């Protein structure tokens, strides 16, 4: 069934550089139209994963399919169906925003209109400016514009909003939502957990080269990690995790009066859940890491 085939399919993906293992058996699928957020600390293997899928790096072992093709062997017709926004770009760019977009649009069989894309990234006022004279955030918007100009079926966004101000970030989110509504499948890596929560349908968390959790954005980390926390003052600050905050508060009100001092109910954000996940694995990693080092030495 071609219509149910995943856009991206990764099985037991491994990548090592000499003795260093960057990816240690990662598996996931991305379904058509889905936005999948890949989360994890620096050096966890996010960029290695995304660059293998973009065709930039070779994998050491495992299976990878992107739009039905092995990304290590993708030709020009395959590349024409992808949009890539790399993590960094420092091009000198003695070319204007409009010239650059018009030029790149020519590479693709069915590109978006240059005017629409310039408007979507909010660079109308800068379209005749040389790219080298733009600010960092504006250059980043050019990167995003170049990523979407070819009307990609699959869009890779590697930390797309680094260096954006809050307003630009919200504009960018609107643009991505529009792409989603047009059916674009998106693989996103980001350090901003609110961004993953805003845009992502599902997320995978990578740490130490392994996928430590994967699931819908509002389910990742498990139900326990999402238990609300109730905080109040009673001989100093107190807090308690509970699945039944209502009954806890009722009990507190009986004991401390209706207006419980310093009362807060906090639902853990994706960021809290993520930090919980990553910190628990990094302590495990550290202990196993020292054993292997001991063996190697």
């Amino acid at each position, binding site marked *: 069934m071609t219509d149910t085939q995943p856009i991206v399919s990764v099985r037991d993906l491994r990548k090592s*550089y000499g003795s260093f293992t960057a990816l240690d058996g990662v598996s996931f699928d991305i379904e058509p139209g889905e936005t999948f957020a890949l989360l994890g600390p620096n050096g966890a293997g996010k960029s290695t994963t995304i660059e293998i899928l973009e065709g930039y790096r070779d994998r050491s072992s495992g299976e990878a399919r992107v739009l039905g093709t092995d990304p290590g062997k993708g030709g020009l017709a395959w590349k024409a169906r992808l949009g890539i926004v790399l993590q960094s770009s420092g091009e*000198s760019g003695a070319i204007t925003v409009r010239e650059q977009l018009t030029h790149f649009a020519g590479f693709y069989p069915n590109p978006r209109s240059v005017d629409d894309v310039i408007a979507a990234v909010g660079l109308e006022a800068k379209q005749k400016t040389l790219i080298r004279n733009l600010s960092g955030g504006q250059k980043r918007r050019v990167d995003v514009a170049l990523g979407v100009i070819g009307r990609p079926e699959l869009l890779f966004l590697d930390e797309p909003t680094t260096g954006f101000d809050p307003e630009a970030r919200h504009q960018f989110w609107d643009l991505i939502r529009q792409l989603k509504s047009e059916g674009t499948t998106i693989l996103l890596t980001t350090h901003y957990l609110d961004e993953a929560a805003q845009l992502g349908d599902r997320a995978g968390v990578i740490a130490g080269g392994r996928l430590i959790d994967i699931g819908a954005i509002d389910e990742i980390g498990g139900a326990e990690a999402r238990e609300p926390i109730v905080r109040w003052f009673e001989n100093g600050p107190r807090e308690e995790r509970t699945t039944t905050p209502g009954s806890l508060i009722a009990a507190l009100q009986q004991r401390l009066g209706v207006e419980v001092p310093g009362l807060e109910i906090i639902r853990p954000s994706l960021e809290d859940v993520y930090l919980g996940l990553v910190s628990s694995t990094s302590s495990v990693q550290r202990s196993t890491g020292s054993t292997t080092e001991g063996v190697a030495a």
Partner: protein
Amino acid sequence: MSNTLTLGTRRIGYEVRQYFRQGDTVFFTFLFPLVMLTIFATAFSETSFGEDANGNDLSAAEFYLPAMLAAGVLLSGLQNMAVDIAVEKSDGTLKRLGGSPLPVLSYFMGKIGQVLVTGILQAAAILLLAGVVFQAALPTDAEHWLTFAWVFVLGVVTSAILGIALSAIPRSGKSATAVIIPITLVLQFISGVYLSFTQLPEWLQNVASIFPLKWMAQGMRAVFLPEGYEVLERGESWDLPGVALFTALWLVVGLVAARLSFRWIRKDS
């Protein structure tokens, strides 16, 4: 294939536009031979560089014109390409192009086209400067200009291809000029561009004869120096077949090296 050609043609315009917007490349590759010709023609304006069959003195501008044309070919081709591509490799331009459906061949068409366009404009400017400002006598017959055409085109293309191959050497864009300019500068000094080739010691002439610039400069001298000056060359002849052979040989070497060394990105680094 037609798509490759269309995109390649578009790349030429795109590359030329960027070339002339970069002040440093315009100065160090485009204007440099013009500046040098002006300096030599002015500094040695009273010096005679021998006389032709009719007893007319050869002026400094006439003597240095072929040398500066050869230097221009080397700078517009080799130096410009090697630095340009090394910078594009390190600043992410190539990585972006490598992720796009642009054929590699179109990219190189753009580069070589840019070198041809800027090289032709440069040669025209040098000839204009020599002929109009410094009153240098230029050939009036078709045969000499035909020789000029093939020496120039073969030289530019060979230089450009060698530049593409050499772009693999600098480890970063920042070091590119520091790595490449000394190579081209030394070549110019030992190949008879700034110093008269036959005044160099024999062993240095032998070393220089391995490299293509000596042959390109000799080809240019065959076009622009008066009849009789070939006796000053090694073997007392312009040796145009040798010019063609050695330059073409370097073209093949460059093609093989470029084919083996060029990558959109350094994979797995």
